[in-house]
């Protein structure tokens, strides 16, 4: 039986959720509310010539650029200030916000929005990575359409390629993915005592504050963000709430009434941000004995029309593009390409899945080409403690992948099945190895986020944790309390932890990047340790912990050199499939996973995250096709964008290996994204084995398999 902090306890939020008592943002009535409906562009690129708004009934308003308060900026402050709150001239993507109609009746708002007539001068647009690189229709950004263009060099790739006996090439592609959090986007904005209060289903309350303040020309303290219970995020509520909140906040300053914007599903699927499509070109140099001596990688992502967080996503992609392998000589170029699509943004994994899928498929293709067992090839190149990373940093921890492989090979029956299923027999096995760096990339935690956590013992003796990370289903309300309770030696249910309110809590950073437990949880532990000494002193007591970089970690953001991450989570996912010879339908027969995340703070929560992440990744790898047609998403309802149901995949076997990390709470590292990183690649490789064809893109749909079988 598991003991200590890993032992599972009932989640603190589960009772109210199961009872149907929990109120999400759309469940809370607001007196005197005006609903908001965004009015959007219906072309992808060009110029607005005229906006003709119908006459509005009493109590309805149309808010647009001209309504931004004096001195306010028509730019949303994310990493840069580039995405406009409203456009009244330049159009960069289909569905860009022109204005917001507000009023007391939702149906009337829809009719009014439909009656707004906009005339445009349309321009040729680039939608794909290739079109963006070719600057189709003229550059959208700078003179080359590149939001970021990075180079990395490890060792001496030039000489490796000059010595190469042969070079194996590959182009691996991944598509858009929609988050499909079950609760659509929603916010309510109101004025309270001269301040702007924003209630949002969101991951990052302080991001919203930072985004909204400049457009209202108000100080940060004038904007208060309160997280509403959040029905799933997966990255989709990292930056996108900034977009809705900015428009609604401008409206509130004009109409002086609360404004609520709740998306319906179709609106959410058509106009919210998606995962970055990617294209990664590998060239691998082999010597005369088929040993890998060098690699050349050209990674491109479709960033969409504004920068948003694409450079950072690209960084994580390229830093993950050697995955768990120590490749001796590497040169890499990574580009974030501007196109006239909705800006791509955060999604669980944040670039790492694209890098890892490409690396895993490419390695398996090399093994096929040279007639070697793919797992043996991969295992011969695996990193270990002290290995040099693609950014010339160091793996500081013991890597347990070999022992994890022994274990998962045993439980999945890998060796027996792999030898029994001849390639092309219709049965296949795939194994993906992966890692995920915990926390912000590079020096982000130290230089940008600077997380702080406060803890108080109130007059009445009750302990409260104050921080800004949100519960969105991943269990933080429970795990943060458990960490504090373990230190303070009390019942986790006796500790208070409210949904964050930027007016009350210190900024412990956003709920992203698998950082909440590893980085913020550590601060909870440290703050609790300090408070423990004062717990029995009379009156209110307080403690605070601030982030410091673990010793021995170095990073240079200018050159992108050093330790991109202080520590990694590690995983292996094995998948067994059967492909129908006629229909090419795939049945997944088994899914086995093993993960090393340092230490589990709660095993039930961890296994829940594992299964959820793996199934979401299997959707990405097999079902979730999202295509662009003339700049619009072709699949935009739950009927045509297919996510996994109970019928699609078998249960997920999930095992954990401990390897406590000295700078995480009780040894814990990041978890939430790691568990997404490998399953799509594993699925693709299992299908590849079953049909004996080279799979080089996901999702691996029956149509694609058919195409592979027909054309090779």
């Amino acid at each position: 039986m598991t003991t200590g902090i890993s032992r599972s306890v009932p989640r603190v939020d589960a009772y109210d959720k199961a009872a149907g008592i929990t109120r999400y943002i759309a469940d809370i009535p607001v007196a005197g509310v005006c609903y908001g409906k965004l009015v959007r562009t219906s072309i992808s690129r060009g110029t607005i010539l005229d906006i003709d708004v119908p006459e509005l009934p009493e109590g309805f308003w149309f808010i647009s650029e001209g309504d931004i308060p004096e001195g306010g900026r028509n730019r949303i402050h994310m990493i840069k200030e580039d995405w406009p709150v409203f456009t009244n001239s330049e159009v960069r993507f289909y569905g860009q916000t022109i204005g917001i109609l507000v009023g007391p009746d939702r149906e009337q708002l829809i009719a009014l929005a439909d009656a707004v007539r906009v005339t445009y001068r349309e321009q040729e647009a680039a939608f794909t990575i290739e079109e963006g690189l070719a600057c189709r229709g003229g550059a959208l950004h700078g003179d080359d359409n590149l939001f970021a263009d990075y180079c990395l060099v490890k060792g001496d790739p030039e000489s490796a390629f000059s010595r190469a006996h042969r070079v194996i090439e590959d182009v691996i592609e991944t598509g858009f993915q929609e988050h499909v959090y079950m609760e659509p986007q929603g916010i309510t904005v109101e004025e309270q005592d001269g301040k702007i209060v924003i209630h949002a289903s969101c991951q990052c309350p302080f991001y919203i504050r930072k985004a909204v303040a400049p457009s209202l020309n108000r100080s940060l303290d004038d904007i208060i963000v309160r997280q509403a219970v959040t029905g799933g995020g997966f990255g989709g509520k990292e930056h996108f709430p900034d977009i809705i909140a900015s428009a609604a906040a401008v409206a509130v300053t004009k109409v002086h009434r609360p404004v609520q914007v709740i998306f319906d599903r179709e609106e959410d699927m058509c106009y919210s941000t998606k995962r970055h499509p990617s294209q990664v070109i590998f060239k691998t140099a082999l010597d005369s004995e088929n040993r890998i001596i060098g690699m050349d990688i050209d990674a491109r992502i479709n960033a969409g029309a504004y920068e948003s967080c694409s450079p950072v996503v690209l960084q994580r992609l390229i830093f993950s593009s050697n995955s768990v392998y120590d490749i001796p000589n590497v040169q890499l170029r990574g580009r974030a390409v501007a196109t006239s699509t909705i800006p791509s943004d955060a999604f669980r994994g944040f670039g790492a899945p694209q890098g890892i899928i490409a690396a895993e498929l490419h390695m398996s293709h090399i093994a096929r080409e040279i007639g070697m067992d793919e797992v043996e090839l991969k295992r011969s190149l695996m990193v270990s403690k002290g290995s040099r990373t693609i950014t010339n940093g160091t793996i500081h921890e013991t890597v347990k992948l070999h022992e994890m492989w022994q274990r998962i090979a045993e439980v999945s029956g890998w060796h027996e099945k792999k030898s029994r299923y001849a390639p092309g027999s219709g049965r296949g096995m795939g194994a993906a190895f992966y890692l995920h760096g915990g926390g912000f990339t590079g020096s982000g935690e130290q230089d940008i986020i600077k997380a702080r956590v406060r803890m108080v013992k109130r007059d009445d003796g009750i302990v409260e944790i104050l921080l800004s990370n949100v519960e969105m289903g991943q269990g933080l309300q429970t795990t943060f309390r458990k960490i504090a309770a373990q230190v303070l030696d009390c019942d986790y249910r006796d500790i208070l932890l409210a949904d964050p309110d930027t007016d009350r809590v210190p900024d412990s950073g956003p709920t992203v990047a698998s950082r909440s437990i590893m980085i913020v949880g550590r601060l909870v532990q440290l703050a609790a340790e300090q408070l423990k000494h004062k717990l029995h002193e009379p009156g209110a007591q307080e403690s605070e912990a601030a982030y410091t970089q673990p010793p021995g970690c170095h990073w240079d953001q200018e050159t992108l050199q050093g330790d991109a991450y202080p520590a990694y989570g590690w995983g292996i996912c094995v998948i067994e499939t059967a492909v129908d010879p006629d229909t090419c339908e795939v049945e997944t027969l088994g899914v086995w996973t093993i993960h090393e995340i340092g230490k589990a703070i709660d095993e039930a929560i961890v296994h829940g995250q594992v299964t959820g992440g793996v199934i979401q990744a299997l959707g990405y790898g097999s079902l979730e096709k999202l295509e662009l047609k003339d700049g619009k998403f072709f699949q935009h309802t739950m009927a045509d964008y297919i996510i996994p149901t109970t019928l699609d995949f078998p249960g997920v076997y999930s095992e954990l290996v401990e390897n406590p990390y000295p700078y995480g709470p009780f040894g814990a590292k990041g978890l939430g994204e790691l568990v997404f990183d490998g399953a799509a690649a594993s699925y693709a490789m299992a299908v590849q084995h079953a049909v004996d064809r080279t799979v080089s893109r996901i999702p691996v749909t029956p149509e694609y398999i058919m195409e592979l079988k027909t054309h090779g």
Partner: protein
Amino acid sequence: MVIHFTCNGKPVTVDVDGDMRVLDVLRDVLDLTGTKEGCGEGECGACTIILNGKTVNSCLLYAGKLQGAVVETIEGLSGDSAGLHPIQESFLEEGAVQCGFCTPGMVLSTKALLDRHPDPSIKEIETALSGNFCRCTGYGKIMKAVVSSAEKLRDSREDGHQSGTGLGVKRG
């Protein structure tokens, strides 16, 4: 249109447009917001209710259909003081609740299934829940929760107990 129906065991009368969605009658008129809107198009199951013993997507149903009907929503399962229903308890115990947005619909689909089939096979459970999407859990713990609640309900029937008696799960 004046509509009389039974909601969670109590007689209810509402005066609404006959073409109002049942989802809106529940949420906006009766303030029963445990029933969620995930898609509004009959795909996701977040709005699942039990109508005359069968699960329906309340976003696709018009108020007129409620005339004389018997409706169960998530709020009716736990009752005012009885604590959670054994199905809800199992969802808690198995860790099947994450963001919680799908949970009311999942619980009601489970109840409708177990009312019909006290001892369902795994395949039957998968089929019964296939209209309820969950993006958080990957369904593993939900499946376990259904299996364990079926066992609990069978045991309590054998013992001659009524369902809905608390099994010690407290509000956290």
